[in-house]
């Protein structure tokens, strides 16, 4: 497990969101997963998504994935984005725009808040509609009024706003804004973007096809 994290420290976020505890000494991945009640195959699948560019999950992985773990992971990611990430980012942008005149500060913060709201709305849709539906499919109690295919919509707008925010902060901040603070905000935005990409990938290329398969087998 330690070697895995040494190879890709981005997995730090993954293990904490899956509820894997540190203090694993020399234990192997399988041992740690067993100890903390995480499906090893699911864990490795998520690690692959994070570590291999252009990764496509093999049939074997998809057949063995534990949907409960995937949903748990996605939900914890949501809380992570809406908690730590959002709080830190909001504070950083607020600090960055402090020296701007009131009108500029307002318009930049306004754009950021709109992005936040949109992200939150998107997550809420998943938590209230999609995830309960996945649970129902697993329990074989799902109704016919929703299907997972309908879920593959609407990531794009959220992504576009984040890209815009990055460009605005990188290229067009007024001269009185501090360079170190711009850099700090950019770090946060790049990290968030990278993480959201993986998050979306897990939804579109693991959650959707696996649920789709279950729907068809019913």
């Amino acid at each position, binding site marked *: 497990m330690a070697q895995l994290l040494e190879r890709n420290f981005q997995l730090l976020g993954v293990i904490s969101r899956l509820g894997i505890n540190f203090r694993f000494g020399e234990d192997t991945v399988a041992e740690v997963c067993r100890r903390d009640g995480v499906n090893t195959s699911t864990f490795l699948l998520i690690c692959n998504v994070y570590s291999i560019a252009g990764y496509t999950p093999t049939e074997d992985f998809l057949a063995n994935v534990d949907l409960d773990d995937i949903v748990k992971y996605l939900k914890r990611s949501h809380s992570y984005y809406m908690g730590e990430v959002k709080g830190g980012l909001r504070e950083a942008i607020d600090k960055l725009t402090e020296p701007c005149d009131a*009108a*500029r500060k*307002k*318009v*930049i913060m306004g*754009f950021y808040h*709109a992005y936040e709201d949109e992200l939150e709305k998107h997550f809420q849709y998943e938590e209230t509609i999609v995830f309960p539906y996945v649970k129902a499919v697993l329990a074989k109690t799902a109704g016919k009024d929703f299907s997972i295919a309908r879920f593959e919509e609407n990531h794009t*707008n959220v992504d*576009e*706003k984040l*890209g*815009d*925010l*990055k*460009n*605005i902060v990188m*290229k*067009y*901040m*007024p001269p009185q804004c501090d360079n170190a603070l711009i850099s700090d905000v950019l770090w946060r935005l790049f990290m968030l973007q990278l993480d959201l990409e993986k998050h979306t990938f897990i939804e579109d290329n693991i959650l959707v096809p696996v649920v789709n398969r279950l729907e068809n087998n019913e």
Partner: protein
Amino acid sequence: MSKKVLIAVPSIIAARGLERIFSDLGEFEVAGILRSLPLGRETPLQRIKADVLIVDPSGYDADSALSIRSGIAAQCDAAVLGFQSSLLPDEVWRQFDDVVGLYDEPTAVIKKVRDALSTHHEQPDESEPQEQLSQREKEVLVCVAKGMLNKEIADKLNLSIYTVITHRKNITRKTGIKTVAGLTVYALLNNLIEV
């Protein structure tokens, strides 16, 4: 290198007249004359790779006449001018980069074609990338930031809707900003609009 012109005009007299106007200059080469331009899948457009098309919409039925420009845009990236041989609704003419008429002087025709080409290809010069927004792009951006629709911008600035779309694409390519809300922030930070 001379620009390739494709003429799609039912009147052979008009088509030959246009051909003559272009061939006198050496700046343009007439790559083909068609009586009509089919707008389906298999069209001569991809093969000919014209830089400029001159199309008479009078040969189309009312519905297809409105989608000539988009039909062509799906096939090639030429500037498209309308050829006015009869009276048709404004919406038909608005889709074109410009319109030449039966009674235009040859010099006026050439000027319109040159202008259409330069607006259409406001792409940066390869040797020295021009990444600053042009004056026209700034005007379009201000309209976008004010929440105007493409058609409203076209009317206000007297451009075809396709030129407006080209400008918007270029604005996004240069700034990296895609959403209207983001472009509004950009316009404000760059003092193009007041709050």
